[in-house]
């Protein structure tokens, strides 16, 4: 069902965990399918220096979160804001159809985290 890249991110998720004193936190949740993602970012000089995630969800949700954190680390906020859920799915080499809309929300969580940072700055 999932390709190797997805399974790798699922088995060895990068950047799992909470963060002390994050610059911003974003959470998205989809009540229908129940996946919840929480992204913490540490921003310095408009650059995402560190990023962590917590996810309750299926394999696709966990892999998307993990992949996103890798894609984003070291990027400027502007660059990070350009990343879409679709980019994450592409980075993973594709996700099964039924997972595309429910479990692939990591970019949304990131954007919320950036907004959170910008709002509270």
């Amino acid at each position, binding site marked *: 069902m*999932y390709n190797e890249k997805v*399974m790798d991110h*699922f*088995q060895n*998720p990068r950047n*799992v*965990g*909470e963060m002390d004193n994050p610059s911003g936190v974003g*959470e998205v949740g989809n*009540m*229908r*399918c*129940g*996946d*919840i*993602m*929480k992204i913490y970012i540490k921003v310095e000089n408009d650059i995402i220096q560190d990023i962590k*995630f*917590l*996810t*309750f*969800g*299926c*394999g696709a*949700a*966990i892999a998307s979160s993990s992949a996103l954190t890798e894609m984003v680390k070291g990027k400027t906020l502007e660059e990070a804001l350009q990343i879409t859920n679709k980019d994450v799915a592409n980075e993973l080499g594709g996700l099964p159809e*039924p997972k595309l809309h*429910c479990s692939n929300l990591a970019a949304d969580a990131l954007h919320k985290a950036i907004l959170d940072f910008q709002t509270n700055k």
Partner: protein
Amino acid sequence: MKKIYMDYSATTPMREEVLEAMLPYLRERYGNPSSLHLFGRETRKALDEAREKVAAGLGVTPEEIIFTSGGTEANNLAIMGVARGISSGKNHIITSAVEHHAALDTVKFLGERGYKITILPVDEYGIVSPQQVKDAITDQTILVSIMTANNEVGSILPFEEIGRICREKGVYYHTDAVQAIGHIPFNLHEQPVDLLSLSAHKFYGPKGVGALYIRRKTRVKQILFGGGQERKLRPGTENLSAIVGLGRAMELAVAHIPEKIEKLSRLRDRLIQGLLQIEDVRLNGHPEKRLPGNVNVSIFFVEGESLLLDLDLKGIAVSSGSACTSGSLDPSHVLLAMGLDPQIAQGSLRFSLGAENTIEEIDYTLEAVQETVQKLRAMSPFIRNIC
């Protein structure tokens, strides 16, 4: 890597004896049982014998057995067939919220077609009480369809009492026994059941074949149209090798049931006990009135598919909900009907044990689950929010 199969409720491996019985009908005995010539007569005989075996296994007569393409079609034929057979103008059908979709969705379809339907709620164990059924029956009721044992949480329903009530009220009773046949003792001759569905691949027989028991004089009409096979109730060239396999599987399934129950429930109870030792795990389904091989637990703060996936990487095959809906994203309708919170329902696993499981596998599985839960909970945003 170890490969441990704990999804016997989704399907079972076929017994070697069953394949042996089937092989001649996949090779040299290929005649169409409807053909009058030699080739047809020899397969007709095999068809009759398989029907006798299935009937004997249920304690009924061969004329009461209609072969179908599986449990799904048996349920559809029972429910739509009874609805089509009714000439009195009555139009009320009762079922329960925990039925397999093959029954529930058929009843709902009839609902769209103008039938009155009642979907009975269940208690926290997924059980419908006979009293509920009694209260729901009206003078318009034609059929009660309530399963024998639930495929997800393993609860055994009081089908005998429900049947008795239906009999008293003069209402047909259908029971989906797909998960029960071969797993709990059963003698239809003594039970007030009018229609009963079964599916061979759930008791070590072939996939793609099932049967509907239709008590003599029960008025049922065909729902598919074509040739005159199966007393005109189920047209189409018979799936002969599979039907022969079903006959053999039934013979084997009804033998030594007490011993099988004893062995399986010991494994089951060991698994349950072990799982309940993990923090924040609850058992779903009735603690005693339960299929001998079924273990269904909710593991709080984590999601079922990721549990399943991680266990799969460790070689353990389990299910998060029933196989046919596990492709979908909705939490189990059975767990929701039992009152579980959707998020908790989503973190549920079904282990269904069978003939080849061992104590060693149970213990290996328990360790694996512990590890997996730990890993996934470390990623979960909930455990921190809630605890």
